[in-house]
């Protein structure tokens, strides 16, 4: 069920990028896309039926089921990359503001 919510979240992000003409709102939309994508990548590694988080509690074979650890490792690094790209985008937005004194793309075109 969360898988479909993640796909719709990604689509919401694309809709936000289409309709918003504000730099900050566009960065927010990119973040929403990123969250949706992260949840989707995690969800393709989920194993149902009483599975456990991928932390080994015993080296004897007790028939425990663990979820797939590989998507989690990929998303772990992707989140930290995400804060870097968001910070870079916000820095560019601030320098845009210092030049045009607005965040709206339409007003920038008028003043240019």
């Amino acid at each position: 069920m969360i898988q479909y919510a993640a796909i719709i979240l990604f689509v919401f992000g694309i809709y936000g990028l289409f309709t918003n003409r504000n730099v900050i709102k566009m960065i927010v939309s990119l973040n929403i896309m990123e969250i949706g994508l992260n949840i989707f990548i995690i969800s393709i590694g989920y194993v149902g039926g009483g599975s456990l988080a991928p932390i080994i509690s015993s080296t004897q074979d007790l028939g425990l089921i663990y979820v797939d650890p590989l998507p989690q490792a990929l998303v772990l690094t992707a989140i930290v990359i995400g804060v870097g790209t968001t910070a870079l985008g916000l820095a560019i937005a601030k320098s845009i503001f210092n030049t045009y004194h607005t965040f709206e793309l339409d007003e920038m075109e008028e003043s240019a």
Partner: protein
Amino acid sequence: MKNVFGFLISVALGIFIILALANTDAFPAFGDVDLTERISNAYLDINNVEQVGSANLVTAIVVGYRGFDTLGEVTVLFISALGVAFIFGGVKQKRLDLDFKPNFMLRVGSNILFGIILVTSFYIILHGHLTPGGGFPGGAIIASAVLLLYLADDRFRSNVKGFKVLEGVAGSIFVVIGLLGLVFATAFLENFLPAGTVGNLISAGIIPVIYVLIGLKVGSEIAGIVDNFLTEEESA
């Protein structure tokens, strides 16, 4: 008009994604994953776990199996921090004016809290191979502690040069440990220390060492980004 157009394209894209992914081999239905067909089956094999020595399999993958990936990833974070510093660059810098004046109690209390948060972050980093956590969240918690000091004291500026030196040293030791793997074993970043018993604090060879370095590097990078966002040029 523009909103309707964007809405239609988004809906079409969503339907396309859901139809394309429905029950194919690469994306089975939610919860019906068969791990024996995937590469993760080898990671979950108990013999391989004992050879690597890390109880947390995510850490084993991030630092052990895919350590070279992680080196590139911290490089990407470094470059984005460099870009932020470049855009905000300027010679004369001062603190951004916040509207509130923190009183004495807030300053002293946040200094005490700073120590507690720092200890928590080091706990999370050091136990990265046993419990959830590790270098990436631990480093972010270090940056959060620095952010607390910035918010609680309106004149505080962290020692930015010290952070830059820490970051450079941590990254260099990461590469040197990788090269030592080339000397004592066969490949770059190979685990040349004994794996030990799964579940002990001192186990898993070089994995805790590298995670501590990653934690310091990520923490100093994000603290540098926070510092850049809270300063502005003198003339503006």
